[in-house]
């Protein structure tokens, strides 16, 4: 216990001895972890939105003019028989018009829609909305549905989703490059800080070796120093992210509500809830900071152990 306390004190003392280098290392690692958190949130949220789009929108199937209800029901049965369908709902032309009015005109729907009176602009737009058990099968299912002669149009989220996926790939590539550069700088700076401390403590290390200290005990204060740098370097961006994500979540919700977006769109565009994403950020950020600090200091100090 006494040894652990001693090593810990020495680790903190090392930090104070090279305060400027320690601060530089901490700031760099903070920047690295901040960007990591930021891009992680972006990638996860874009994925989340893409998933929402796929699951919320489903596949809408519209029929040619003049197709009878029996034919439509026969179509439904065949689709169900084909398998993989979680839910299939019929939406009549009137229901479609009611939904549209509500989404676009809101509370004033009756007054604004008065101009259309008895004329349903969405006549012949009765449809089936199909939700699948596995959204990965959307493309093949859409292809299957298109093979029916009675089907006029098949809409699903593939365009939006593929755009979101492309965006995600770009964010991912940019983040990998940026984080990689910052990671390299962090490693360099922490390594330099540890080297500098080792230089200051050269005499002490030599004496320790001659007295019979194990490599572990000589290494411990340096590893503690590196780990503390990594830990503080993680705490700062995680604190920032706590604030930023909360604000982003609130702002996104406020924006959607202000803009009077479609109810289905507001479901899709929701960010991952803070309580769901933040624990992951804390875990990943801390592991990254502490991990970098620990590994870099551990490796750097090795060359100073040969006495």
């Amino acid at each position: 216990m006494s040894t652990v306390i001693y090593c810990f004190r020495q680790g903190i003392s090392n930090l104070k001895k090279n305060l400027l280098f320690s601060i530089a290392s901490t700031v760099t690692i903070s920047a690295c972890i901040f960007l990591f958190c930021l891009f992680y949130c972006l990638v996860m949220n874009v994925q989340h939105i893409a998933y929402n789009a796929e699951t919320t929108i489903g596949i809408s199937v519209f029929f040619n003019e003049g197709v009878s209800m029996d034919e439509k029901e026969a179509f439904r049965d065949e689709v169900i028989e084909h398998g993989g369908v979680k839910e299939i709902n019929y939406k009549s032309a009137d229901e479609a018009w009611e939904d549209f009015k509500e989404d676009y005109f809101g509370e004033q729907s009756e007054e604004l829609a008065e101009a259309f009176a008895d004329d349903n602009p969405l006549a012949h737009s009765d449809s089936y909305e199909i939700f699948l058990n596995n959204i990965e099968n959307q493309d093949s299912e859409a292809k299957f549905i298109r093979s029916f002669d009675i089907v006029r149009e098949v809409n699903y989220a593939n365009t939006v989703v593929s755009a979101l996926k492309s965006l995600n790939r770009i964010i991912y590539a940019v983040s990998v490059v940026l984080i990689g550069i910052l990671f390299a700088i962090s490693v360099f700076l922490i390594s330099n800080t540890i080297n500098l401390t080792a230089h200051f403590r050269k005499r002490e290390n030599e004496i320790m070796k001659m007295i019979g200290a194990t490599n572990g005990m000589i290494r411990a204060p340096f590893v503690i120093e590196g780990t503390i740098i990594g830990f503080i370097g993680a705490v700062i961006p995680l604190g920032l992210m706590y604030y930023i994500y909360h604000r982003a979540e609130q702002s996104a919700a406020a924006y959607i509500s202000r803009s009077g977006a479609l109810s289905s769109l507001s479901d899709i565009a929701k960010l991952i809830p803070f309580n769901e994403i933040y624990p992951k950020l804390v875990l990943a950020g801390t592991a990254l900071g502490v991990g970098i600090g620990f590994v870099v200091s551990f490796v750097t100090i090795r060359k100073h152990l040969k006495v």
Partner: protein
Amino acid sequence: MIEFNNVSKVYDTGNRAIRDINLTVGDGEFVFVTGRSGAGKSTLLKLITRELRATEGEVLVAGRDIGRLRERDIPRYRRQLGIVFQDFRLLNDRNVFENIAFAQRVIGASRAEIRRNVPEMMKLTGISAKYKNMPNQLSGGEQQRVAIARALINRPSVILADEPTGNLDERNSEEILRLLLEINQMGTTVIVITHSKQLVESVDKRVIVMDKGTVVDDYVSMKNSPPLKSFFGSEPPKQRGRSRRNPEFSAMSGNDQENGRRHER
């Protein structure tokens, strides 16, 4: 017991620092190792501390070939040794107490042990009154006492002193020698590496003379020089159970058996 059996050490540069040495230092013995610069004294010491490994032959300490020690076993081995350096090697940012306690912390001693042992060592080495002083507030002799206390605190079986009086004046040198003799009388083996002819001649102790990597003489100094005699106030303790001169080296060095003090010739 420390044994050198046909030990040679060749550095990477090709310099042959030790040449086929055979040597034995018994438990509880006090030995001076002397010789010119480059004679191989420090290499000999480093072979004992296992900073270096013999190129040929074996170095046995307590019957164990330390050349075969695994890296991870070296720290435990070194805890049997107490090492005193010419330049004291104290930590300048810590006071006397902390410098001595440092050796205990290194081996993971508890706070209670440290509180008990450090004052005891300070008392033994005569620096109790200065326990709060920083190294730069101490004289050379006092600093070396702190270094000796640090070397002793883990109760090593061997003390290796590398030029312990090299940076000290005559009076401080005498005090340090007396301290090392006292430690030896308590049963600890003491090996002192020194250039100082005066130091070697001041007590009746075994002297190993090295030159060009070989042992050229191994004898027991027989006279007390006047300054140290006055310091001790009486005859220093005699070495028991050893011949006055090792005949093996008589012919080599051509020394006079009677005075036994011509190792630098």
